[in-house]
């Protein structure tokens, strides 16, 4: 079982690298300065490339029912499970902290639309924040080595073996979703989950939407543990759970004015309940 998983992981990595190279080649050919426009590129057997129309692409995303999640009071559990599974170190220092998913208050999550006079209940809510897996991710555009790249299913992923630690992605990310390992992260891990790689010092990391679980047909950990308050699905599929939730609720996203196309939506009013 363990061995199988390892095989799968290495397979996955190879496919990722291939995808990265294809994107690089495609971008060079098209002469575009933005590597994340257009559809995915498939390599054909004869070596030629076919760019598939964008409409077919998948974009995984989340819809988070914030009041319900707060009511359940399970966010800390979710965060700990995510960080434990992915071997996210706890450095004990806010300046060097590594975070994949965490909680912020409304004013910090949505500073542009926050007002002085806010509903007290909303003021007290904790908003889960994480990588937004942007449709047009500025971190992917800025990365000089394709260490961070957009998968065909819309997940903004990372190759920890290619990252040079230039932190361009951190400067480019308007969501503060990326963390650098300012020293050896393994020293901060009490227990290591052998199913997920640990990182080395000097590389950037972030939430990868549990792509390794998605590839096995499973749901990301946060959504799986959320008792239905973090809805996961394909934003481009009108019949998906996320699209249903978006249809039934008023939702907001972080910093939409920047045009990055965040894939994480927040229900603030509590929805149909």
């Amino acid at each position, binding site marked *: 079982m363990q061995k199988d998983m390892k095989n799968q992981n290495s397979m996955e990595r190879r496919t990722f690298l291939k995808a*990265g*190279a294809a994107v*690089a080649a495609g*971008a*060079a050919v098209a*002469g*575009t*300065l*933005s*590597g*994340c426009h257009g559809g995915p590129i498939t390599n054909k057997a004869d070596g030629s490339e076919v760019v598939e129309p964008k409409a077919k692409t998948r974009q995984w995303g989340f819809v988070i029912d914030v009041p319900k999640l707060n009511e359940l009071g399970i966010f800390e559990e979710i965060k700990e499970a995510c960080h434990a599974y992915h071997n996210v170190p706890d450095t004990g220092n*806010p*300046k*060097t*902290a*590594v*975070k994949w998913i965490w909680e912020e208050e409304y*004013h*910090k*999550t949505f*500073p*542009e639309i926050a007002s002085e006079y806010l509903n007290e209940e909303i003021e007290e809510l904790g908003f889960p924040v994480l990588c937004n897996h942007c449709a047009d991710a*500025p971190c*992917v*555009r*800025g*990365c*000089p*080595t*394709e*260490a961070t790249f957009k998968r065909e299913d819309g997940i903004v992923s990372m190759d920890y073996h*290619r*990252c*040079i*630690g*230039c*932190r*361009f992605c*951190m*400067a*480019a*990310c*308007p*969501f*503060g979703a*990326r963390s*650098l*390992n*300012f*020293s*050896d992260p393994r020293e901060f891990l009490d227990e290591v989950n052998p199913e997920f790689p640990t990182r*080395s*010092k*000097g*590389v*950037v990391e972030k939430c990868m939407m549990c792509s390794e679980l998605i590839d096995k047909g499973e749901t990301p950990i946060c959504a799986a543990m959320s008792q239905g308050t973090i809805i996961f699905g394909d934003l481009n599929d009108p019949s998906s759970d996320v699209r249903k939730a978006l249809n039934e609720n008023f939702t907001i996203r972080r*910093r939409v004015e*920047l*045009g*990055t196309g965040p894939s994480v939506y927040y229900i603030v009013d509590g929805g149909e309940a």
Partner: protein
Amino acid sequence: MLEKALKGGKLYWAWVAILLVFIGIGIAAYINQFNYGLGLTGMSRDVNWGLYISQFTFMVGIAASGVMVAIPLYLHNFRTYGKIVIFGEFMAVAAIVVALLFVLADLGYPTRVFNVILYPSPHAMLFWDMCVLSSYLLVNILIGWTVLGAERKGVKAPKWCRILAIISIPLAFSIHTVTAFLIAGLPGRYFWMTAIMAPRFLASAFAAGPAVLIVVCMIMRRFSTFKVTDKAIDALAKTVCYAMIANVFFFLLEIFTAFYSNVPSHKASLIYLFAGLDGENQLVPFMWTAVVLAFVGLFLLLVPKMRKNLKVLPVALICVFLACWIDKGLGLILAGYVPNSFEEVINYIPNPNEICVIIGIYAIGFFVLTILYKIAVAVNETGIAFDHSEEYERKLEEAGGEH
């Protein structure tokens, strides 16, 4: 020609020894950082670029400023710069070496630096910056070395050298433009996201760069056989003056746009720099010092009597240089991270180890500059004159020759 750097007086060797000590300190500090990680700097997940990248930005400017000598000479045949141009080119070489070392020091995983070449990414500005910086470095080494070699033998430099010199002019503009693009295209960093970032970079570079060049030439006039002419000094000082006026003007434009529009995200970084934000105000004294220095420097340069006074001029130039350094080498990068994505103000205080690395890298720059200038001065002494100087021009004209 390198052997010429091995001959020198006591003062020369003392200077080299001091530089080597600082280089040693820098290397030791870097080894610390290499072993521990970037946790040995003041950077954080919120202020993820610090003094390394701001020094990089500043030094790219110093490198680009070589064109302020090259343009008058190569495009307008302003022969007064004939002798000084080689020093401008060598200063560019040393400055790029320093800039590249700062990028290397800034990497979290420096042993993977060649991934930038192995996986070229045309959508990343850093890739283009690498391309133009390495081309500019190569071009300047080639021109400087060939011209000097020709001068030593008393022959005219080959024609391709002149072509390269002309190519180096747009290349110089490109290195600082692309460096501005590194930060000017990031969504959500409002302090950096301004269309005049590149012009601001160029203006401040063309003020600070020639300012150093004049001061260094005046030092060489005192301690070496290379005697820069007063005419060359005054012409360059005028360049510094005009560029600094443009630099200050551009900065005031930023202030107008931010404060007249009254958009909070555009004002925040400027308020942080000049008044402090959320009680964090460690950059405020620096910024006001820069304001005073900029205006004192400009005043001294604008009044011809002051500018032509060789005792006042260095003071004016140092004022301008420091003002540019505080603006670009300190405030620009740090304030770009204020406030962060969550409207928080996170301060950055450099780590002593980081400061040692910075001192070491600058010492390497001065070391490269010293060696190159020593060789250039020695060739200038002994070389059989292929001379751009006015004296030579006059002699030619007297002899009825053409040039």
